[in-house]
């Protein structure tokens, strides 16, 4: 028993842990997937809003600075021609400067969080210094050409400063957006890897589950087969046992007949007393053996199939009268007083001879065990849809520890006494078999020193149960 249990639990454990593992795996993967998704969104958003824009603005700022420088040079070249600076050139320069200031404003709006690069206010200060240093020189160029050239040189230095700063911002933007993009890529790669891992895990868990299911099915099949085989073997063994007893009983019948018959003939032949005793002994023992054989045969048949019953419908009243008459005759034969208290009404569908046999077994037992002069009582009633027939004696009673075993074959409470009484040890077992074959039962009730009540209960025929059993109760002792 230990072995199959252990084997059975193994696939079950695999199945349970596989399912559990799968659930935990799915939950963990779901959470990780959510976090990854959130991160990818965040990183992409950040890269798009700040880093890419920073790069854009750095670019724009540089372009604006170069524009300013370009228009400053145009002013310078015009001044070199010696024909004076035209208004349109000045307006272009003013426009470029205004654009530069606008770009600086936009850069400030973006908000640079990196302290290694110049901040917008630095730009604005340098730009203003540049403008305030150079702009007056333009108006004075016609009068003081020398001062204009000096201002131009100075302004070129400042504008280069601005351009370098703009390039720094631009570079930072490039770096940061490249880093953001590679971050997005890396995160996406991680997600991909995770998904592959999930798929692999799913395949693995699925394979484990399939394996466990196969094992469970195989195990169940194996258990079922082995139980089936055990049941078949048991049925065969039972059949073989019943067959053996039946065959043995049949075989015993012929020699018993010979013994018995010869003793009967021998009794007629001889008048010598000793020889007569011998024949009488042979006759008695062979009669007893014949009964034993018939009892064994009946029980063997009942073991392999329900005993053959010749059922007929019979009125309880008439059945009880016949039964009581035979019970009285048996009691008289045994020299025991007999009383009856017959009650009951309805119809039985039963093998009357078998029921009678069972009750007479009770009567015979009671007559054997009751003290001389004490009566055996036969009581009957119908109640709850069944006929109950009870045989009571005032014998020594049956100890409680034996009471549950008295219906077993060959079980005897008092072995020496029973042997002297010449019983087969099968009577009560036969009574029980008869009762059960009719869908009924036998009951034993006993008090040591007071007596024993043996009851046989069989169901009344369906549809014939009277509404009130006691109403039609029969009189006593008729």
């Amino acid at each position, binding site marked *: 028993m230990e072995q199959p249990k252990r084997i059975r639990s193994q696939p079950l454990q695999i199945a349970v842990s596989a399912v559990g593992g799968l659930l935990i795996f799915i939950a963990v993967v779901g959470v990780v997937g959510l976090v990854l998704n959130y991160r990818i969104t965040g990183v992409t958003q950040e890269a798009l809003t700040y880093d890419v824009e920073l790069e854009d603005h750095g670019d724009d700022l540089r372009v604006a600075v170069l524009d300013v420088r370009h228009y400053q040079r145009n002013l310078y070249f015009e001044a070199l021609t010696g024909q004076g600076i035209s208004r349109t050139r000045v307006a272009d320069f003013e426009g470029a400067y205004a654009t530069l200031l606008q770009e600086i404003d936009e850069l400030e709006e973006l908000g640079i969080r990196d302290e290694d690069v110049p901040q917008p206010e630095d730009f604005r200060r340098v730009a203003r210094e540049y403008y305030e240093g150079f702009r007056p020189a333009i108006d004075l160029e016609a009068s003081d050409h020398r001062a204009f050239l000096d201002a131009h040189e100075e302004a070129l230095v400042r504008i280069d400063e601005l351009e370098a700063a703009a390039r720094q911002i631009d570079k930072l933007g490039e770096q940061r957006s490249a880093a953001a993009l590679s971050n997005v890529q890396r995160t996406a790669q991680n997600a991909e890897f995770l998904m592959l891992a999930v798929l692999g895990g799913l395949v693995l868990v699925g394979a484990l589950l399939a394996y466990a299911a196969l094992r469970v099915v195989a195990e169940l099949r194996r258990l079922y087969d082995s139980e089936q085989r055990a049941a078949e073997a048991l049925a065969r063994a039972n059949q073989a046992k019943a067959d053996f007893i039946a065959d043995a009983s*049949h075989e015993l019948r*012929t*020699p*018993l*007949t*010979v013994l*018995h*018959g010869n003793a*009967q003939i021998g009794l007629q*032949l001889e008048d010598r007393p000793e020889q007569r005793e011998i024949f009488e002994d042979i006759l008695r023992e062979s009669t007893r053996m014949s009964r034993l054989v018939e009892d064994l045969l009946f029980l063997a048949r009942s073991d392999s199939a329900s005993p053959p019953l010749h059922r007929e419908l019979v009125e309880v009243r008439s059945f009880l009268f016949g039964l009581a008459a035979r019970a009285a005759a048996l009691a008289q034969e045994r020299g025991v007083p007999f009383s009856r208290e017959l009650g009951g009404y309805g119809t039985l569908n039963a093998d009357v001879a078998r029921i009678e046999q069972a009750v007479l077994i009770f009567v015979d037992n009671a007559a054997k065990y009751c003290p001389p002069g004490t009566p055996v009582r036969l009581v009957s009633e119908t109640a709850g849809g069944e006929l109950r027939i009870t045989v009571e004696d005032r014998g020594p009673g049956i100890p409680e520890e034996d009471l549950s075993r008295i219906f077993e074959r060959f079980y005897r409470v008092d072995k020496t006494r029973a042997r002297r009484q010449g019983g087969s040890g099968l009577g009560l077992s036969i009574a029980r078999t008869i009762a059960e074959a009719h869908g009924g039962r036998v009951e034993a009730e006993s008090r040591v020193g007071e007596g024993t009540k043996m009851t046989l209960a069989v169901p009344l025929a369906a549809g014939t149960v009277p509404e009130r059993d006691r109403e039609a109760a029969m009189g006593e002792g008729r």
Partner: protein
Amino acid sequence: MSRVLVIEDDPGIARLLKRGLALEGIEVDIAEDGFAGRELWERGGFDLVILDVMLPGVDGLSLCAERRTAGDEVPIILLTARDEEEIAHRAREAGITACIGKPFSFPELLERVTALLKAG
């Protein structure tokens, strides 16, 4: 004097019947198998036939059916070791007069035999 044919392969049963019936003044012929039984039976002159169901050669039931078909109306007692319903039914079909199950009580058997001989 009445004549009875006993077809029985068990020598104990055969001797018991011969001894018991002889005491009643009945002449008994014994056949130990179906073939010998058929031979004696066909020769005729019996007032009663007692035979076993299980016989070597020809079984009891077939032999009876055969004799009844041939128009023989002698009373027949069949000895059975198995008292199943089926055998009783087949015995009626084979035209057997009475069935007696083993173990039987000799006085009972004798009663049946004398009754059938008186009726015949």
